[in-house]
C-alpha cells in the first residue's frame, strides 16, 4: 500500500517537475498577459497561479505545438471566467482604479505639430501601458499578444480562438485606436461596445 502510494506520488512529482521545466520559463509572459487583461495586480497573480495549476492538470494531454501559446490560451480562459465572475463587460473606465491619478497630463497638453511628431517622440512605458489598458478587451488582447508576448498571427488566432483574418482586423483596429489616443492625448473613446467587434 505504502509502496504503491509512493510510486504514484513519485510519478506525479516527476510529472510536476517536467511540467515546471517546460512551463515556468514562460511565467513572465503569462503574468504580462494577465496583468494587461485583468488590470489588477492581485487578480493577475491569482489568475497566473490558477493557469499553472490547470495547465499541470492537463499536461498529460498536452501535445504541443508550442508551450507559450498553450499557456496563454489557458490563462485567457481563466481571465474570461474572472470577467464572468465580475458579472459585467470590461468597462474601460475601470482602469482609473488601477492607475494612480495621472500626473502625466502636462505631457498630453503639448499639442503635437503633426501625428508623426507625436509618434516619434519618446513616450514612457507607463503612458503607453495606460493607453493599451484603455483599449476594449479584444483589441487589448490582440495587441498585447503581438507586442508583448510576441506571438505570430497564427498563434494569436489559436489563443483567441478566432481566424487569422480576425486577428489581422483586430490588430489594425487596435493600432488605429492606439494611434488616435496617442495623438489626441486622451484615452480611447469607448463608444464601441466590445461585443460589436469583428
Amino acid at each position: 500500500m505504502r509502496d504503491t502510494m509512493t510510486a504514484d506520488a513519485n510519478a506525479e512529482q516527476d510529472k510536476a517537475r517536467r511540467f515546471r521545466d517546460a512551463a515556468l520559463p514562460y511565467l513572465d509572459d503569462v503574468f504580462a498577459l494577465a496583468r494587461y487583461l485583468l488590470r489588477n495586480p492581485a487578480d493577475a497573480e491569482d489568475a497566473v497561479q490558477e493557469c499553472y495549476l490547470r495547465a499541470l492538470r492537463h499536461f498529460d494531454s498536452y501535445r504541443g505545438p508550442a508551450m507559450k501559446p498553450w499557456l496563454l490560451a489557458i490563462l485567457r480562459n481563466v481571465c474570461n471566467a474572472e470577467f464572468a465572475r465580475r458579472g459585467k463587460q470590461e468597462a474601460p473606465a475601470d482602469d482609473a482604479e488601477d492607475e494612480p491619478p495621472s500626473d502625466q497630463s502636462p505631457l498630453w497638453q503639448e499639442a503635437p505639430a503633426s501625428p508623426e511628431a507625436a509618434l516619434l517622440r519618446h513616450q514612457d512605458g507607463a503612458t503607453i501601458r495606460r493607453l493599451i489598458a484603455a483599449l476594449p478587451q479584444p483589441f487589448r488582447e490582440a495587441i498585447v499578444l503581438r507586442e508583448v508576448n510576441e506571438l505570430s498571427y497564427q498563434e494569436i488566432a489559436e489563443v483567441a480562438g478566432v481566424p487569422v483574418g480576425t486577428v489581422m482586423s483586430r490588430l489594425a483596429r487596435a493600432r488605429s485606436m492606439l494611434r488616435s489616443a496617442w495623438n489626441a492625448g486622451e484615452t480611447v473613446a469607448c463608444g464601441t461596445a466590445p461585443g460589436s467587434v469583428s
Partner: protein
Amino acid sequence: MNCAECEILLHALIDGELDAGHARDVEAHVATCAGCAEKLEAFRAMRSAMAAADLKEKAPAHLRGRIEAALSLPPQAPAQVITPRKFLPPSRRSFFGGLAVGTALSAAIAATLILTVFPNDREQTVADEVVSAHIRSLQPGHLMDVETSDQHTVKPWFDGKVDVAPPVIDLTAEGFTLLGGRLDYIDGEPVASVVYKRRKHIINLFVAQRLGATHANVTDRTIQGYNVRHWSTGGLDFWAVSDLDPSELDEFVGKISAALHGSSS
C-alpha cells in the same frame, strides 16, 4: 489593392507576416497613395516606440515562489495547499471536477499524507530544484539580474536581497569567467546565484545559508545530464551546477574552495 485592404495588410507587412506577393502589392499601393503611405510610416514609428518602451512584465518573485511551491506538491491535492484567493469559490468547486477539495480536516489529512510520503530525501529535492533553477536560468533573458564581470559590483548587488553575503570570486585568470549574479528561489527561499562560464558552458553557483544537508565534503550527483556539486563551508551551502565536464566542474569547485579558505584565513 484599395485603401481598405491596404489598411489591414500594412500591419501584416510591419509585423513581417505578409508573403512576398502581398508585400509587393502593399508597397505598390503605398507608393501611389499618400494617405496609406502616411499610415504605414506612422504605425511603423508607433511599433518601434512600443518596442523601445519595453512593455514586458516581470512576474514578482513571490509569485514565482508561490507557483513553485504549488507545483512541487502532488497535484491530487494542490487546491488544499494553496488556494487562489478567488478562482475556487465554494460554489464552483464542482467545476474543477476530480479535485478533492474539502474541509479543513481533509486538508490537514492531505498535508500529513504528503509529509509521510516525502519525508526522506530533502537533499534530493533540493538537488532537483537546483537543477531546475539552472535550466530555467538558461532560458533567454533569465540568466542574470546583474551582468558584470566585476566581483565588486556583483557582491554588493546581493545586499538586502538574500540573507547571506555570498562570496563572489573572480576566477577569470583560471579560465572561469564571472558573468554576473542572479536572485533565484530554491525550496521557497531566496538564494544567490553567481554565474560563471567556461567556454560555452554556464555554471550556476548557488549560495544560501542552508540548502539541504550540511557537509564539508563535496557530494556529487548527475541529474538530467547536469553535474551537481554540493558542499558546505563557513556556515554557507554551495551548489554548483553545469553541463560542464565532471572533471572541470571539480576543478571549478576546487578553485572556489581554495579561494574561500584563502580569504577566510
